[in-house]
Each structure stands twice: as C-alpha cells, then as structure tokens.
C-alpha cells in the first residue's frame, strides 16, 4: 500500500490549498485521509453553520434540492457533489463521491463489490475508515471509504421526510452513507 507517489498534486478541495514539497512521498492511505479531512470539515461547516443555522434554527431561508428554482440554499450533499464535479473537471488524480445504502438518488447506491463491502463496514463501525484496492475499467484504484454521519438535525429531517428516501428513521450521529475516495495506483 505504501507506494511512491511523487507529489506535485495540489489539494484543491474546499478552497484550501496545501502544496507538499516535490520530494515528499505520501502513502495512498495518508493522501486519502488528508483529502477526506478537508472534505469532511468543509461539509460539516456548511451543514452546521449555514444550512442548519439559517434554514432550521433562524428560519430565514430554506434549503432545497431545487435551490435555483426555489431560490434556496443547496443541500449539503449537493454542495459536496458540486465540489466533486468541479474536481473531476480539473482532471486531478483522485475522485470522490457520496454514496449510501439508503440513497435518495438511486445513482448513489454502491455499485462495485468494494463499495458495498466498505459502506457496510462503516455502517457497522463508523469510527474507522475502510480501505481497499479494486480494478475498474483498466485502472487499479486505492479506494477509501469514510462514514458519513448525520451531524445536524437538518440531515435527519431532510432524509427522513424525502419522498424518495428508502430509510425514514435516521437519528443524529448515525451513519447515513459514506464518502468514497479513489486514487488511481501507479
């Protein structure tokens, strides 16, 4: 797993940039953990300090899946997905997505065998990430899966009340899904 990864990669997630020295060598696992730390922090900040505060506590604006049409805030999951899409456009050597065994959008259900195993593992124990390797297409990936927990009442109410949600009894602190992060292996 400790593989040479000559890092000239810039961590561009969430607007935080951390350039590592060119000679540094970072394991796939450490790189994945670092990337996820940025993603998780930004998303938690958005969920608690923007969506939950303004939509649920102060009730000054709504958060909506159709935020443009409804002139509302994007949902935290959408904010996360838009970031993932922007990273994908940059063609950097990693990709990530938010998935769940109880997805509102069926496209976000686990597809690969490793995703299913990983999401199951983090649902059972959300204190430890799941790591593995898989080959998709012709590329071998280091895949890390992190538990995605309900961090605010907004997460729970929205998922429990959504017409397309297959699970309607989420509670705060519970695992709702997982962040799947992939780095192509050299």
């Amino acid at each position: 797993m400790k593989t040479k990864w000559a890092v000239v990669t810039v961590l561009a997630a969430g607007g935080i940039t951390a350039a590592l020295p060119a000679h540094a060598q970072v394991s796939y696992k450490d790189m994945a953990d670092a990337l996820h730390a940025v993603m998780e922090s930004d998303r938690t900040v958005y969920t608690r300090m923007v969506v939950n505060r303004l939509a649920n506590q102060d009730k000054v604006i709504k958060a909506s899946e159709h935020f443009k049409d409804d002139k509302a805030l994007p949902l935290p999951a959408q904010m996360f997905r838009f970031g993932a899409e922007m990273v994908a456009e940059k063609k950097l050597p990693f990709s990530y997505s938010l998935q769940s065994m109880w997805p509102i959008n069926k496209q976000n259900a686990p597809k690969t065998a490793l995703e299913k195993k990983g999401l199951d593992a983090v649902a059972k124990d959300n204190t430890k990430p799941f790591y593995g390797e898989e080959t998709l297409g012709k590329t071998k990936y280091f895949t890390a899966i992190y538990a995605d927990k309900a961090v605010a009442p907004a997460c729970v109410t929205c998922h429990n009340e959504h017409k397309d949600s297959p699970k309607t009894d989420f509670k705060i602190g519970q695992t709702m899904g997982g962040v799947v992060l992939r780095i192509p292996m050299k």
Partner: protein
Amino acid sequence: MATPAKRKIFWICWGLLSVAIGGYLSAGLLLKSAASNPLLSPARAMLLPGKTSHGHYQIELACESCHTSAFGGRDVVQASCERCHAQELKDAVDKHPSSKFTDPRNAELAEKLDATLCVTCHVEHRPEITHGMGVTLAGDFCFHCHQDIAKDRPSHAGMAFDTCNSAGCHKFHDNRALYEDFLAKHLDEPSLLGRASLPARNFRELAADFPGYPADRFPLKPQSTTDAPAHLMKSQDVAADWLATAHARSGVNCSGCHQAEKNGAKHWVERPDHKVCAVCHEPESKGFLAGKHGMRLAEGLTHMTPRLARQPMHAKASDTELGCTTCHGAHRFDTRKAAVEACAGCHRDEHTAAYERSPHYALWKKELAGEAPPGSGVSCATCHLPRTEYRAPGLDVQRVLVQHNQNDNLRPNEKMIRPVCMNCHGLGFAIDALADRRLVTGNFAGKPGAHIKSLEMTAQRARAVEEKRRQRKAAAAQKQ
C-alpha cells in the same frame, strides 16, 4: 497515333493541370482565408468529408473553428465543442456532465457509452446516421445505463428505450422543464394561465448601474438635435427616425455609433457593425454571435445571408447580409418591426407562413393596435428571441434582455417551455403542444393532438408516496 512531340505536350499539360489542381485544393485546405474567399471556398467545399449537421453547416468551411490543430485528435475537437457549448450546458444544469462518465465507478458503463466526449453521440459530417439534435447514436441509447429503470420506476415497465428522449418526457442534457418535482408543482394548470404578458425590458432604468456602460459618452439624458456633420445629413428622415428612438432619449447621438477613433484621430464610420452595438449591448451582441444569424461572423466568415441557409427563404432576400441593423433597421431601431416583419422578410417555411393565421398573431395585432397591453402579443421574437433574466457578473440588479441566440431554446423545443410558453400557458398544455409536430408546423392554430402522460404519472406517484407516508405515520402512532 500521336507523334512523340504531341505526346510530350500532352504530358506537360497533364502535369501542369495536376499541379494546378493540387495547388488549388491545397490553398483551399491550408489557407484560413479560403473559407471566405469566393475563389477558394469551392476547394474547401470539395474537401469536406461529408455534409455537416443543421447546427454547424453555416460554419462548415471554417474547418479551423473545430479542428484547431491537425494532430490533436478527439481532445482538440472536444475543446472546440466546449468553447461554444460548455456554458449553455452548465446553464441547462446538464443531467449528463462528463464528470458522470469519468467517475471510476461508472467505468463499465463509460466503456459502452463514453459521453466524456461530445463526438461519442454527435459525430459531424455523417448525414446518413444523423438524427434529430445532431445525434448519431441509435435512438435507444438510454438502455446502456438505465436498462433496469423499471425496478425503481415500475410505471416505466415495458416502455421502449427509444421513447425516453422522443416522447416529450426526458432529455439527455436539459430537463429544467421536465424534472419530476417541477411537474409536481404545475399539475392541473389550465391551458391559459390568465397572466399572459411578457417581462418588460428594463435596460434604460438600469443602464447607469451596469459595469462597462459608457455613461461618460452616453449620459442617459434626452437629446433633441443631431450631432452629425451637416454635410453627412442627407435626409431629415434619419433625424426624425432617430429622435423617436430610445437612443435619442438616452443620450446616444449620431457620433455615439458613427464616430470612431484610430491612432488618436477621429473619423466617421458610415455603417457601424455589431461591435459598435456591443459597446452598450454586449450580452445581446454575444447572443447574436452565438446564434444562427451571427455565428459566421463569430468564426471570421462573411455575414450570414438567406442564400446560405438550408431552410426555405424568400428569393428576394437571398443576399441580405445579417447584422444588427438588418432586423432592427438603422436609425429607427423599431423592435416591433424586428420582432415579426424582419423575420418574415426572409423566412419562408410553413411555420412562418402559418403565423398570420395563428391566435398568437391575433394577440400581436391587438397589442400593435393599442387594444391590448404591452407584452401581451406574441411575435416571432417572443418565442425565438425571448426576453430572459440576465445578471451581469458582480452586479446585484437583474436585467430583462432579449436573448439573441435563437439556438438557446430552439432544439429540443422543450427548452422553450419555461422561458417562453409558461409566461402564458400551463405546463401540461405547453408539453403537449410542443410534442405535436403538426401543431408546431401550423404555428399553434388549434389544440394539441397529442397528450404526454408525464404529469399524470407524476401525480400518481405523488399519491402513492403520500399513502405510504400516511401508513408509516399510522404505524408509528400505533406503536406509541
């Protein structure tokens, strides 16, 4: 038998002719200016590998517009596609962005349909396999990824996969008017909403606040006298036309458009082009250059003329060069004329010919006669050059301006539903009307002959979801 001398002359002539033809074709291929050169453009046309689609035929001789490098392969062409189309796809909240196909978890699906490249589905120069929207795949392409849709949506069981995109229910890229929650919001709307009027344009009110508006040159104060040199004022009609315009009311005098500066010296320009209009009307000009009327100019070619069009056009207008003043009329800038007469002056297709028999035209006539309020008539421009909301970058105010890129909502025609049809009509009626080809050709004189069931399906599903919720709540209450 030819003598050796005659044979020699023959071979010399043959050689010279071959070199001349080769040189002519090479010049056509290699010289960028060949696309606009009447002598060399036929050489380019001979080298086209096949007829281009309706979207690109106007610029098909500007090979360099898409093939920016001879050796870049598909990536180079993709960059060209994105140069013109990336923003509109973003604005349309593209349901199938390339990130969906670069996602490693979709690698298996992407092997079947690599939609990271536009040319996977839209191959140019292949008329024999080109369908509507310039699609060159078989019509059931949704099957590749959505073959098990009936598991998630039992109502879709048994539906043929070539109907997903063609039955008025879904579109590959733009579903802004067709997504389920939007349909659910607009169930049971009447065919006429009873608020038939267009948003009013508001440039005059907001011009001073717009970034880049040259308020120093055009102080937004009414003008009463022309400032053109007296010897150039050949007719007082021009002055009278100008005095009646918003230009005169907004401080845009003759010199505003006709006076240019080069190397510090001012000179008079007899026929200002679209670049002059763009000084104040930048978004409109951008739209014009992106649309069918201006795309040739945008690619460095000569003006579009009706002679170059594939659609039926009036012969008398064949050589009319399309610029801003072609439709708006220099000095008079009559937007009402630009909205109907200008279009009908060139276009000769069935849809245009049927306009005068349509209820839309009856409304337009009433508005022109002052019998109905402004914005209640429906002109050609109402639908094809619609008024849209526009927010300049970094500006808080929102402008209502005319989208001069008619490609923006032309195909698929469901793109018209929200910005155009729903100003006056209910969603269900709009979906049905646009799905009825006969009705579209006849310019909406009559009622839709087709009915799209997506609204009923949405309502049915909403009822099922509500029932499930009710049962869940009842079960929870029982537990307590």
